[in-house]
């Protein structure tokens, strides 16, 4: 097993873990930058595919990191990536919630939340943009992205429908040779 790759995975994801304000959907731009642009571990296409698979599965989206680790280095890659992404932020949360009582009232928490939520939303929008750039190679795909965004924004329908429609459109376009 390539231990230098595992080491790099650990360092990359541990650093990401501590700036993941708003969870995994905030770190996609940085994940993409590290994994595709800087390290060249995979192509845009593979990155987009792994993200799509993670979105289809239940559970926290942070699992896209586990998938990347698995794709690069098998089981050990999966374990290292998952632990590196979860451990630092979980330890921080653990420590923080323990000293919470000593930090006093809820005012500072409200201020912090008001200040950080806009950042999380901006980063999430950035994630969507980076994903769209990595995947939208044709008019059909751009339309799928725009259509799904509109559906999520204007309706309360379960987003899994949109993913299913995406798959169906992809398959029909393939058969029609578009």
């Amino acid at each position, binding site marked *: 097993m390539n231990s230098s790759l595992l080491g790099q995975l650990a360092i990359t994801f541990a650093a990401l873990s501590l700036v993941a304000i708003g969870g995994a959907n905030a770190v996609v731009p*940085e994940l993409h930058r590290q994994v595709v642009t800087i390290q060249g571990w995979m192509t845009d296409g593979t990155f987009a595919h*792994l993200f799509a698979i993670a979105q289809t599965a*239940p559970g926290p989206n942070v699992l896209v990191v586990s998938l990347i680790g698995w794709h690069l280095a098998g089981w050990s890659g999966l374990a290292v990536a998952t632990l590196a992404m979860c451990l630092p932020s*979980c330890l921080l949360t653990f420590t923080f919630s323990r000293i*919470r009582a000593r930090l006093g009232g809820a005012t500072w*928490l409200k201020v912090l939340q008001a200040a950080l939520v*806009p*950042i999380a939303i901006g980063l999430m929008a950035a994630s969507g943009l980076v994903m769209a750039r990595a995947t939208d190679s044709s008019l059909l795909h751009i339309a799928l992205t725009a259509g799904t965004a*509109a559906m999520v924004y204007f309706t309360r329908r379960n987003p899994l429908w949109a993913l299913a429609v995406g798959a169906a459109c992809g398959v029909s376009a393939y058969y029609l040779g578009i």
Partner: protein
Amino acid sequence: MNSSTDTDKAIRAEYVSLGDLFMGFLKMGLCGFGGVAAWAHRIVVEERRWLNDREFADLLSLGSVLPGPNIVNVSVMVGDRFQGAIGSVAALSGLMAAPLAILLGMATLYDRYGGLPLVQAAIDGVAAAAAGLVIGTALKMGRRLRPTRVAILIGCLAFLGAGLLQWPLVWVVIGLAPASVILTVWESRR
């Protein structure tokens, strides 16, 4: 414990075992298609009565301020509250176990059949829709927030830095977070 007079405690479970924690969060992980947070509330507050509404809201807001996914942070805190550090591990592994197993099944299939043009076309379609899902969710959250002018400015800067300019996330967050705190306090005092 004289909790019989305390209404806050009367509706709550007094003792939650490691197994309870694991199973509760296992269910959450399994049900959480497209948004675990709604299920977290249903299971932790309504179904198992581990926490009341206010306590849950408090943990969730703390979880969203700290880095990492809200729900992962909530599992760590809920586990710790009932069973200490081991409880955190039990809750977190419960939350991750099922999704990880499902994901690995899907990844194995992808490894085997992902090279087929038809499968490629299908996943390309899903990926395009997934990008739209993330964009739509961000827009929706922005609308729900009913943001102040400072919030709009900060959100746009985060989008600009991380999305359009592709700056390293660490610098975007380290630069924006303190600025946002200062501006938010300033705006609320005006």
